[in-house]
């Protein structure tokens, strides 16, 4: 009996060693003994003999044709790295709650979208992500290792370690207005390039279109767009004394951009806050958005798309895809896009604005990295993920352009949370997109700045209680001010300052100051 067992073990071991050397396709040594994988990993190149299914989390709603697109991507991945991807979605309305939960839930998944605005630092410091070492990158993602911008790799470091593959794409962000051309013509408005023009347009809507809300901003992330626009203009007017709001935005902390002393303060303490507040208050009082905007959960682009509002404010990148959709759905609206920056400089985004990471408890982190390598760099996979199926959703126009086909409403251009794998090398822009897009971008490029503190990362480990208390204020009282809900601007600012003091903002600012000084030390001014 014992002898048979020994013999069996020997034969098994022999088979394992053989299969490791030949590494041929699907011999399926999956269920046998663990020593085999250790043995084969030591051998040359990544072992892809075992077929794996990787689970990838994206943010947003599942596009109608998502499964069709991923069927094609999986065909390619199966052949190249013997893996397939199963995509799961968390919608925009719930991602803030759900994102951290899936790390703690014990669920088995592998890849996730991340960004500096989407929990990258929070999860990286909590060891939620798998560390991507230079060595792993070269072994498992050779194409990425070659094409990665060195600055992007540097930016992705948290305590000297990288946990994300940042997008390979330089992005300019600026806000634009999207307006109804038919209504503009009706009320004789020619452009919305200045705040006064925009006001005139919205006033015309208030006066003449009782069934519409001019700019139906919601209580979620878009609540701060108008406030930010006005803030940027006021701040920019101060020239070299302009303010830089320090990330994360929920701590409402800013610093004079060129202040060598780094005198950190709350945005409420700045000399421009009152002006900005009065401006938004004026818009709110004139009925440009709902009296119930603070409880409105629909964001302003959705409302615009549904025909309930006449104007929407959004990021240029959102505008690109929305414009294409609306041209198809409502050509009679004659949608037009205008620069909403009012002279404030556009921001050159950090590469961390979009990226992909691997779960620290992923069962197949290496294969996940290989899959990401293909999604980023392989033209077939990248095109599919970013724009859909060629011939169904889009058709190529030259090497760097594409035309959206009618089917693209089922898989819209650049909107399936593919932003983390954008790649300048293979990027295509939409032909027949926003007609004045080039003009807008050229205009922004002349003044665009990358922002002194764009890559500043606040370490909140010593001041968590203060962060919680200030966040609470940001999510309640400050939200009201951002939407202009105040009857007594000066009084409310003062009240809020007192609340912030009670919440321990001084200790928080002290921590900010120390870290900003340290940051300036290591990142000397450009």
């Amino acid at each position: 009996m014992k002898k048979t067992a020994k013999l069996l073990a020997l034969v098994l071991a022999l088979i394992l060693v053989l299969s490791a050397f030949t590494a041929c396709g699907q011999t399926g040594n999956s269920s046998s003994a663990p020593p085999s994988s250790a043995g084969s990993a030591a051998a040359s190149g990544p072992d892809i003999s075992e077929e794996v299914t990787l689970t990838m989390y994206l943010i947003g709603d599942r596009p109608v044709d998502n499964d069709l697109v991923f069927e094609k991507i999986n065909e390619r991945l199966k052949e190249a790295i013997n893996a397939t991807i199963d995509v799961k979605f968390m919608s925009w309305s719930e991602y803030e709650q759900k994102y951290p939960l899936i790390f703690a839930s014990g669920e088995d998944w592998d890849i996730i979208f991340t960004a500096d605005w989407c929990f990258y630092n929070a999860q990286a410091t909590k060891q939620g992500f798998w560390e991507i070492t230079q060595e792993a990158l070269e072994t498992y993602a050779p194409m990425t290792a070659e094409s990665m911008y060195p600055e992007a790799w540097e930016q992705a470091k948290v305590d000297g370690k990288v946990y994300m593959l940042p997008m390979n794409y330089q992005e300019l962000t600026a806000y634009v207005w999207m307006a109804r051309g038919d209504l503009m013509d009706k009320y004789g408005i020619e452009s919305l390039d200045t705040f006064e023009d925009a006001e005139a347009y919205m006033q015309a809507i208030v006066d003449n279109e009782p069934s519409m809300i001019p700019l139906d901003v919601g209580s979620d992330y878009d609540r701060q767009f108008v406030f930010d626009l006005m803030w940027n203009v006021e701040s920019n007017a101060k020239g070299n004394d302009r303010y830089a709001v320090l990330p994360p935005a929920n701590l409402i902390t800013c610093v004079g951009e060129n202040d060598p002393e780094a005198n950190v303060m709350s945005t409420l303490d700045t000399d421009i806050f009152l002006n900005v507040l009065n401006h938004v208050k004026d818009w709110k009082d004139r009925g440009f958005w709902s009296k119930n905007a603070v409880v409105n959960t629909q964001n302003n682009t959705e409302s615009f798309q549904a025909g309930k509002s006449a104007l929407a404010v959004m990021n240029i990148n959102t505008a690109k895809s929305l414009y294409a959709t609306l041209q198809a759905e409502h050509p009679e609206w004659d949608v037009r896009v205008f620069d909403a920056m009012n002279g404030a400089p556009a921001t050159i985004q950090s590469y961390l604005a979009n990226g992909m990471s691997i779960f620290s408890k992923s069962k197949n982190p290496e294969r996940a990295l290989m899959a990401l390598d293909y999604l980023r760099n392989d033209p077939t996979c990248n095109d599919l993920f970013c724009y859909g199926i060629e011939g169904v959703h889009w058709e190529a126009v030259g090497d760097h352009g594409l035309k959206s086909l009618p089917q693209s409403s089922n898989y819209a251009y650049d909107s399936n949370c593919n932003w983390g794998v954008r790649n300048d090398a293979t990027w295509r822009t939409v032909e027949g997109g926003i007609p004045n897009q080039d003009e807008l971008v050229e205009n922004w490029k002349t003044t665009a700045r990358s922002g002194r503190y764009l890559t500043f990362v606040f370490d909140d480990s010593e001041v968590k209680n203060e962060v919680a208390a200030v966040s609470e204020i940001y999510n309640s009282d400050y939200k009201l001010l951002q939407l202009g809900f105040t009857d007594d601007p000066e009084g409310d600012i003062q009240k809020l300052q007192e609340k912030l003091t009670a919440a321990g903002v001084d200790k928080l600012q002290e921590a900010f100051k120390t870290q900003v000084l340290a940051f300036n030390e290591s990142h000397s001014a450009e």
Partner: protein
Amino acid sequence: MKRPQNAFLRDLKENRVKWLMLLPAAIVVILMCYIPMGGIVLAFKEYNYHDGIFGSPWVAFKNFEYFFQSGKAWSVTRNTILYNLAFLFMNTFLQITCAILLSELAGKWFKRITQSVMFFPYFISWVVVGAFIYNMFNYEFGAVNTFLESVGLDPVDIYSNKAIWPFILIGVSAFKNVGYGTVMYLASIMNIDGQLYEAADLDGASMWQKIRYITLPGIRPTIVILFLLAIGTIMKGDFQMFWQVTGNNPMVLDVTDVIDTYVTRSLLQLQEFGMTSAAGLYQSVFSFLLVLLANKLVKKVEPDYALF
């Protein structure tokens, strides 16, 4: 030492069917309530995924500080308790009233249908209720204001009116929970011996007298037990209800903010599991003390009805 063990074993043997019937419930309680209780340690730890629940470093009471720092701990605790007391009394009153009315009704079909219709809201999610409320009270296009304008009155801005929200919340809580409780009280009324009513009829008792002297005393044990159970959750705001129905509205926070919503707003961006657990522990400990206290009171007045 030996005798009680033997007695227990004997009991186990004699009543094995009853013990067996208890088993599923016991397993569920152990799995769902007792084992997760180990997670309480999180309240005193700085959690990270890598070290897990038990490996993460201890931080003593640091996780509790934020809750008291901004001075809102008292006002949200007060709101939570007052709302739950209001819900408890209002709902119990309505549930008993409806149960008695239904039990007095003659028509079987009418009774059944009413009961089902009342029960139905219990199954509607708070998100949907929140959407109802928004569509009713929205300033520009809400049903209430559209109606007011059509009859020539001025529109009202409900979402900035602090005084009205406690009533709305008590109202929707009743809307959702009355049907559920009614069924429980109705079952309890059905259990009252019919002979008592027959005897009362012979003695010429009026309907009101029968309710006062037979029905109410008959369901008293149910009332007391449901009351004691409700006390246990008095420190927990119904998060879904407060968040969805008010739409997380900062303008009326003074009167609608409860512990759960406050903690959510504080930690939404921070994602600190330890701090969330700390808030949960605070609620649980207080609830536990309240249950002990309430039980003691009941024991003094009605020793038979106390939980333990």
